[in-house]
């Protein structure tokens, strides 16, 4: 193989390395040793069993959301409202946990169903605003994100505040029967992993092997061919959004029922936006999505330990993931960069 072939093959590593370099420079600017920081991050992610289980517990709702986004991205929709869908799922699950009494497995089933319904409803609202009101899903979703977050703050400072008084931090811990059974006192719940595997398998099959998947692809690629296929864009847009919202809502339920044990102020922890980055980085390669989501989970959990150790702001994890996606978007495709001179364009 000639040099040009080798460069083309190794090229995908370049933006990743550039992102690592960018983050390293930031660390050095703030007087932190890059090697020590990396070590702190790795120790924060894999230092002991509970830390590793935390990485997995964070990964599960993140991947649930990313899985939902695969559907909306395929349909060409920018479901930025996913953050609010996670929050509404968390609120619905919390309502069940705070208000109903039942044997554990019934309670958990109800919580998950309520969360999926609430997430779906919130996504459906964005979808209807788009199809009927012609409000772009980015703006509808964004406004609904903020409304959902404000609603959470209202609940935990008002009607759902703990008996000892509102602290703005969260509700009182839920009854034990309402929580997902967790493995070895960690935040990881095996049941949520089972749900995740089912959801992911369903989406892979739906997108790759069903007519619905084809219709969504047609919709996402090109409205005209979708029209020729006889795809009702309104119906598919709403369905895709409902599907994504339901999975995001389930992710929200996992957040309150296993990551935390109560409804908290920033319940989503930004996993909705992070999931958007995951899917953008994977750029439709479905099987890469779980790996990238896992890597992001490692980075984000590691950067929390980094903050404890070095007093550096934990947003460093977000910077690393963001810069990585930006560089891959900008420089990931060597052909588009035209580094080998101007080639004949196919467009």
């Amino acid at each position, binding site marked *: 193989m000639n040099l040009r072939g080798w460069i083309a093959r190794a090229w995908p590593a370049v933006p990743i390395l550039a992102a690592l370099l960018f983050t390293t420079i930031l660390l050095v600017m703030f007087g932190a040793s890059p090697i020590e920081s990396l070590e702190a991050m790795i120790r924060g992610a894999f230092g002991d069993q509970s830390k590793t289980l935390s990485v997995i517990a964070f990964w599960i709702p993140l991947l649930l959301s990313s899985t939902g986004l695969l559907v909306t991205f395929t349909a060409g929709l920018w479901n930025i409202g996913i953050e609010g869908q996670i929050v509404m799922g968390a609120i619905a699950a919390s309502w069940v946990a705070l208000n109903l009494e039942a044997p554990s497995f019934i309670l958990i089933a109800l919580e998950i169903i309520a969360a999926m319904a609430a997430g779906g409803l919130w996504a459906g609202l964005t979808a209807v605003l788009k199809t009927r*009101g012609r409000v*772009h899903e980015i*703006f*509808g979703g964004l*406004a609904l994100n*903020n409304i959902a977050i404000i609603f959470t703050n209202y609940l935990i400072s008002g009607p759902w505040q703990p008996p000892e008084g509102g602290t703005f931090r969260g509700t009182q811990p839920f009854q034990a029967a309402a929580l997902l059974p967790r493995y070895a006192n960690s935040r990881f719940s095996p049941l949520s992993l089972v749900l995740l595997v089912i959801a992911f398998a369903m989406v892979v099959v739906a997108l790759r092997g069903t007519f619905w998947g084809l219709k969504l692809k047609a919709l996402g690629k090109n409205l005209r061919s979708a029209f020729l296929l006889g795809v009702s864009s309104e119906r598919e847009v709403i369905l895709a959004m409902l599907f994504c919202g339901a999975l995001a809502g389930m992710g929200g339920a996992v957040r309150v029922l296993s990551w935390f044990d109560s409804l908290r102020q920033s319940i989503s922890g930004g996993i909705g936006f992070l999931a958007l980055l995951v899917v953008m980085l994977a750029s439709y390669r479905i099987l890469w999505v779980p790996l990238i989501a896992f890597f992001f989970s490692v980075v984000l959990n590691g950067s929390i330990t980094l903050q404890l150790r070095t007093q550096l702001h934990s*947003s460093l994890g977000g910077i690393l993931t*963001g810069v990585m996606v930006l560089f891959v*978007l*900008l420089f990931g495709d060597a052909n588009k960069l035209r580094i080998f001179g101007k080639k004949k364009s196919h467009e």
Partner: protein
Amino acid sequence: MNDSEIVRILASMILQATPLMIAVTGETITERSGIVNLSLDGSMLMAAMTGFVVGLKTDSVWLGFLAAAAVGALFALIVAFGSIRLRQSQVAIGFVLTLLGDDLSAFLGQNYTRIPGPVIKRMGIPVLEEIPFVGPIFFDQDITVYLTYLLVALTWFFLFKTQAGLKVRAVGERPEAAFARGVNVDYVRYLYAIIGGALVGISGAVYSFNVKLGWSEGHTRGFGWIALAIVIFGGWSPIRGALGAILFGATKALATYLQRAFPQVSVVAFNAIPWVLMIAVLLMVSSNITERLVIYMPRRIQRPVRRLLRVGPPMALGISFGDD
């Protein structure tokens, strides 16, 4: 509520609206040339932080504004480069930059949170500030407010009354036609993306120096998205955009008043007003709800009302233009 209180609320409304007007004007210029800079929320945060830190270190708000403009221009340049040269999705790049600007500003500004810094002092315009009612609302503000009035008016004049403005609009509407007439489409788009981005950057610094003094994590979070929505509501016209900004400034000013008037209502409920308003105004200009209502109006005013309410984006907005 007495007269002086109304005046105070209205004056605060103008102050709240000022940075939004600047950002909306900037983004309007950019979108008129056919590029969507979706990174507003992140670039405003980065610019607010950079402007504040530079202003603090040099003890000069003007250097702060300059630095903020540079940051805003850089973000816009990345979006423009990604879309024009690399043919990538403007929405994708803009969205990533939004998140990145948020995190970067939190990290880089971590040692400068909640400390006092330089501020711009109020400076009434002689004579004009004496006008009863109107004077204290519009002309007893600081210099950035007056410059913003000027900016909005000049931008409107530039876009709709000058040859160069016509060129910008042509590039945004029909790039092929503009290209055929000898306009360098890519150059125009780069230029006005950068100018618009610089204005967005300045708007971030206006928050740090005038409206919401200082810097804290997530200082201007949300305002960038509101500005993007106002651009649509404003029908890509600087003057309508400015009116939209004043509308949102009014909700902010009114929320402060309502909180005092109705202490039994939860404080957090008032925070939702701008977001509900955002959906409402977008529905008003985009959906056919208004169209259905217009039919019931007297025939004579139907046409002007329709012209007033209906807006459409520049036709080539967000679409890359191939010159090869």
